[in-house]
């Protein structure tokens, strides 16, 4: 009989998993600082980490404000795009003709370049509106959520469907006990992909007009005025923002998995 996986000191594994990437990161920073400070790579080619850190502390307020603007745009876009994605996928999974109708539209949306769409939407909604940026984040989030959800909703096996039929399970019962739990991991994978895309899209959209403010806008103005270290500080904040949102979706994934496996009893 098979047994639970042979576990070898999970405590040590976890410590290693945390310590190893941190060590690599610190080492990278040290090498970077060494390259700029000792070897002498010129500062406008690559500012040193200490310069960037100084800019960060000097501009903590504006950075936080910019991150907030971009973050709100990304999160709103992610929420709306995902909601629409899940809803449309649910309909498409039910009705084949809707699926066939949507497929080319979704394929089209998937290849729309943000760079092309941003100026158009920004002028559409007006220069002082954030709606254009949020729309772009929503469109970017919609595609992976829709595709993954649709796939997930189709993963129930004929065997499981036969079984539910043999239990004379009602439609809602089948949905709750079979279809949704089967689809959940796919939906969450879609969300995880979408979370990064939402931040990137919201950020990139800021390069192309719209109201002043947001990390993307500051990166471009800082770079344009040769304030490279400050631009890098904003880049750092963008990374943190993207990571933050990504981690939220990972946590959500864990939570749902735990609810699924634990809540069944």
């Amino acid at each position: 009989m098979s047994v639970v996986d042979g576990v070898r000191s999970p405590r040590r594994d976890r410590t290693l998993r945390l310590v190893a990437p941190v060590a690599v990161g610190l080492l990278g920073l040290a090498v970077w600082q060494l390259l700029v400070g000792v070897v002498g790579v010129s500062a406008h080619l690559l500012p040193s980490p200490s310069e960037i850190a100084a800019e960060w502390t000097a501009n903590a307020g504006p950075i936080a404000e910019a991150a907030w603007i971009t973050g709100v745009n990304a999160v709103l876009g992610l929420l709306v795009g995902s909601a629409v994605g899940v809803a449309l996928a649910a309909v498409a999974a039910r009705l084949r003709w809707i699926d066939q109708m949507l497929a080319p539209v979704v394929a089209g949306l998937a290849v729309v370049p943000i760079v092309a769409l941003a100026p158009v939407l920004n002028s559409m909604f007006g220069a002082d509106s954030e709606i254009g940026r949020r729309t772009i984040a929503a469109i970017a989030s919609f595609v992976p959520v829709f595709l993954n959800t649709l796939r997930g909703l189709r993963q129930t096996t004929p065997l499981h469907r036969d079984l539910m039929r043999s239990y004379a399970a009602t439609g809602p019962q089948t949905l709750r006990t079979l279809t949704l739990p089967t689809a959940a991991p796919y939906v969450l994978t879609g969300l995880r992909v979408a979370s990064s895309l939402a931040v990137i899209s919201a950020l990139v959209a800021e390069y192309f007009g719209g109201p002043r403010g947001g990390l993307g806008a500051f990166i471009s103005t800082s770079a344009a005025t040769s304030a490279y270290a400050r631009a890098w500080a904003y880049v750092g904040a963008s990374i943190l923002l993207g990571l933050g949102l990504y981690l939220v979706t990972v946590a959500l994934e864990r939570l749902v998995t735990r609810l699924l496996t634990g809540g069944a009893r």
Partner: protein
Amino acid sequence: MSETINGDGVAVAANGVGKTFDTRSGEVQALTGVDLRVAAGEFVSLIGPSGCGKSTLMRLLADLDSPSEGTIEVFGKTPAQARRDQDYGIAFQQAGLLPWRTVAANIGLPLELHGTDRAARAARVAELAELVGLSDFADRYPDQLSGGMQQRVAIARSLAEQPRLLLMDEPFGALDEMTRERMQAELSRIVGESGAAVVFVTHSIPEAVFLSDRVVVMSPRPGRITGVVDIGIGRDVPRDEALRETTAFFAKVTEVREALHGTPVTASGREGR
């Protein structure tokens, strides 16, 4: 053996049942002219080569498909009504457990769907886990179990609501020979305790003889019943390793084999013209 039993004691009655499937290459006759009666508490195996319609017949009984012709009654009702009334339990070749549920939650699934309250459900699940020898594994997940154990969970699940009829489609087909023989002995004991009628689809002759009161022999193209062998090994005879060595057992194995091969089957015959 069962034909004389009155309506109340009949688990399954099929009259002139046929089933045709529409496929891309035209109509395929999966079953034709099937008459079958299974008495309450009787163990009947359907045996035959691939394509003889034995699984199709079981699906018709379970109302997972509907017949193209003829009538089927399960405990005097239509299969659809019997399904809604949960008169049968079912097990397939694959265990078909829900991977995100524990063993206990899988066994309790039909009870949960039909509104059995939590306490009664827990008690019944514990009883069933004990019955199939998985009490120590109630909190495990399916992917932590061997194939044989998963199949035992599926069998426990099919027994959850104490059905009067069990429909089993090659439930041991994917198991190795040793596990399979052990499972056969266990199933025989479990069914004996529950008193349910069983329709058991298999393509193993010894398995059919070991378990059944009657073996229904089927033949393909088109799928039909070509013979019935009364096994005549009483229920009081323990289904154990000793039984497999008796001459009576061998004689019945031979009889079923002859019934299987004695039918005029043209090897060149192709379906789906």
